[in-house]
């Protein structure tokens, strides 16, 4: 009867959730200044960040500093860097009403439901009450906002996404940096003819390919397109949608991505680029330490450069507007929010930006200067400087926007489209009907 255990696991999670159903968050999410005594205890942060990354290291240090003045305080960091596993963990805990004091989430439709139920503290009010709100880059905060403009997550990063490329390989194939997104398919063909893999992509994690579907509509119709698409108010059969579907099919036909990309992981893709096999690689500034320092393979070090998301003819967004995420945000649980959590956040958020900038990363605030590491190549500084000249709009990654079922289906169908297993028409009709079926449940 072991076959039934799988069923049991789901039901057990559900039963756990049922038990937690009765008690809702009692406190008021807009009350950001709780009164009373600061009583030290252990608080937990459920997060999805690299275990030895800068954010965790700094927050650990700040928690230790805070504990010196508040004996008995400790910050328990529970990290699940693998994003799909993390989301499952978060959703199960949310269903069981067992979320810890602090937890990470993107501005997803699911998180918006949590916020609507009053389970997350109003971050805009919180940051204002701590007098740090104006320090933040507006676009870092905008990235965290829900559709209605409300802010419930606090950013800890600020990243810019570029297309990194290998000058020598482009030259070998006789192509130059694309002026328009529409130049990309022809560029891929030329690179393939020269025996070079045009773009290295991590297909296993699915979000990197999902970036590509967002580019054409962002240029063609602006950031509103995805906002409308996810609610079923815009369709893939609209002109902007049609263009992106056909563009992706043409990327596939031109064999832009490495063979068998769908089963290759993050490091596979990066290795192909840094070993000089692939000509282009689309990734954010979080990889600066491996792409713009002396850690980079010396044979390609002088050949690497980057360009930002190309525009298109008649583009409604400017060249300095592209994907600039502030990473997964931290939400504050309204149910467990008390003088201690408030006091610790005040302490930590004031000190965090300077510590973070010292590691060579871009702070989500503008009140500190990022330190360029000693082993950096000139590219490092060039990349950081791009942050000073950003437009007002930013391209949102679609995986944070769509409802989870549509998002899952989109990721699957995109692979089939780019591999040429389905036609653009099949893709369009599948996705439009998936959105029509699933969006109403999340965006009513």
């Amino acid at each position, binding site marked *: 009867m072991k*076959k039934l255990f*799988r*069923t049991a696991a*789901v039901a057990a999670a559900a039963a756990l959730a049922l038990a937690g159903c009765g008690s809702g968050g009692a406190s008021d999410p807009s009350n950001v200044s709780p009164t009373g005594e600061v009583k030290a205890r252990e608080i937990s942060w459920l997060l999805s960040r690299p275990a030895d990354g800068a954010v965790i290291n700094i927050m650990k240090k700040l928690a230790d500093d805070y504990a010196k003045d508040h004996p008995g305080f400790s910050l328990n960091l529970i990290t699940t860097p693998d994003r799909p596993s993390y989301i499952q963990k978060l959703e199960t805990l949310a*269903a069981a009403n067992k979320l810890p004091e602090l937890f990470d989430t993107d501005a997803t439709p699911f998180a918006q439901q*949590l916020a609507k139920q009053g389970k997350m503290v109003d971050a805009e009010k919180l940051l204002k009450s701590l007098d740090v709100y104006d320090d933040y880059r507006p676009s870092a905060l905008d990235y965290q906002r829900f559709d209605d403009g409300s802010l419930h997550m606090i950013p800890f990063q600020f990243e810019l996404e570029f297309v990194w490329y290998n000058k020598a390989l482009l030259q070998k194939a006789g192509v130059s940096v694309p002026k328009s997104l529409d130049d990309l398919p022809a560029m891929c063909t030329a690179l393939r003819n020269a025996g070079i893999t045009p773009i290295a992509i991590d297909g296993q994690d699915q979000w990197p390919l999902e970036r590509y579907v967002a580019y054409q509509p962002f240029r063609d119709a602006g950031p509103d397109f995805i906002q409308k698409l996810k609610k079923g108010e815009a369709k893939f059969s609209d002109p902007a949608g049609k263009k992106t579907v056909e563009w992706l099919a043409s990327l596939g036909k031109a064999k832009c991505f490495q063979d068998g990309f769908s089963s290759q992981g993050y490091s596979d893709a990066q290795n192909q680029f840094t070993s000089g096999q692939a000509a282009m690689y689309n990734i954010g500034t979080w990889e600066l330490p491996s792409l713009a320092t002396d850690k980079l393979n010396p044979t390609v070090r002088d050949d690497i450069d980057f360009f930002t998301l190309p525009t298109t003819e008649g583009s409604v967004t400017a060249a300095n507007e592209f994907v600039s995420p502030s990473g997964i945000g931290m939400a504050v649980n309204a149910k467990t929010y008390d003088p201690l959590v408030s006091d610790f956040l005040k302490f930590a958020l004031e000190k965090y930006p300077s510590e973070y900038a010292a590691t060579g990363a871009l702070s989500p605030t503008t009140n500190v200067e990022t330190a360029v590491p000693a082993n950096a190549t000139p590219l490092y500084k060039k990349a950081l400087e791009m942050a000073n000249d950003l437009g007002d709009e930013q391209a949102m990654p679609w995986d944070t926007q769509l409802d989870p079922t549509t998002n899952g289906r989109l990721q*699957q169908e995109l692979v089939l489209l780019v*591999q040429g297993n389905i036609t653009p028409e099949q893709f369009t009709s599948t996705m439009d009907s998936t959105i029509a079926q699933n969006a109403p449940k999340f965006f009513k």
Partner: protein
Amino acid sequence: MLPNRSRLSVLVFLLPPLLLYGVAVLFPIMQSLFLSFFSWNGISDMEFVGLANYVRMLTGDDIFWRSFFNALGYLAICLVLQLGGALLVASLLTSMRRGRELIKTLYLLPAVISTVAIAFLFVRIYSIEPVGLLNQLLHWIGLGALERPWLSDIHTVLAAVSAPEGWRFTGLYMLIIYAALLSVPQELEEAARLDGASRWQLFTKIRFPHIMPVWITTTIMATTYGLRGFDIPYLMTNGGPGQSSELLTTYMYKTAFTSTDFGYASTIAVFIVVECLVAVGLILFMLKRKADA
């Protein structure tokens, strides 16, 4: 017939495991059945929808049927590799004079390697950039035309994710069947041989009928294991590309924990329970009819 007192003591000893079974197995199944009549995403209010989830599953969900047929394909490949392979190896082993223990151990080895390690191992074996073992072998023997990204090709991916599962348990079933083959009476075989029976007749008329009860058990074991296959496909391709290697189990898991559609996921879970029961019933029925004939 046991005297009364000892019947009581038997009950006393049987009750705790029965209770444990009820709490750990029966209760969740009932809970799933209950949830399958609701629409619930974990944080919303539960909404009673009657049979709507079942109607959607059976008539309006293309991925469900796709994963159902994938699961049958996966099962078929696993059964052929596990039972067919096991029978073949076990039969060969009985005719071996030396080195039996070594062969047995080598075949059993994959069964004790962790699933995650096996999944990663096979991702590398099937890889094309950098070239993996399989594509390299094809190249060496002059079948370079067959080289392909096995896990990205929608025509090969299902077989590619089934093979590791089949491969890892072949040794286990081989051991069970080998033990059964050893119990076949030597004098029967000798008598048949004297009467001029061929090796094939020896196998079909004497050995196989003799190991029938063990064969039934292993078939049921392998089938139920195959129907609940989850880890290797999930780890290797996560159901992709598209839905080419999506099984009912991976689809159920995604519906529950990615789409947070617990009601509908429970509906799929109920279907899997029914499917397993039907499969076991079918095996028993077919084998019994064969034995009677």
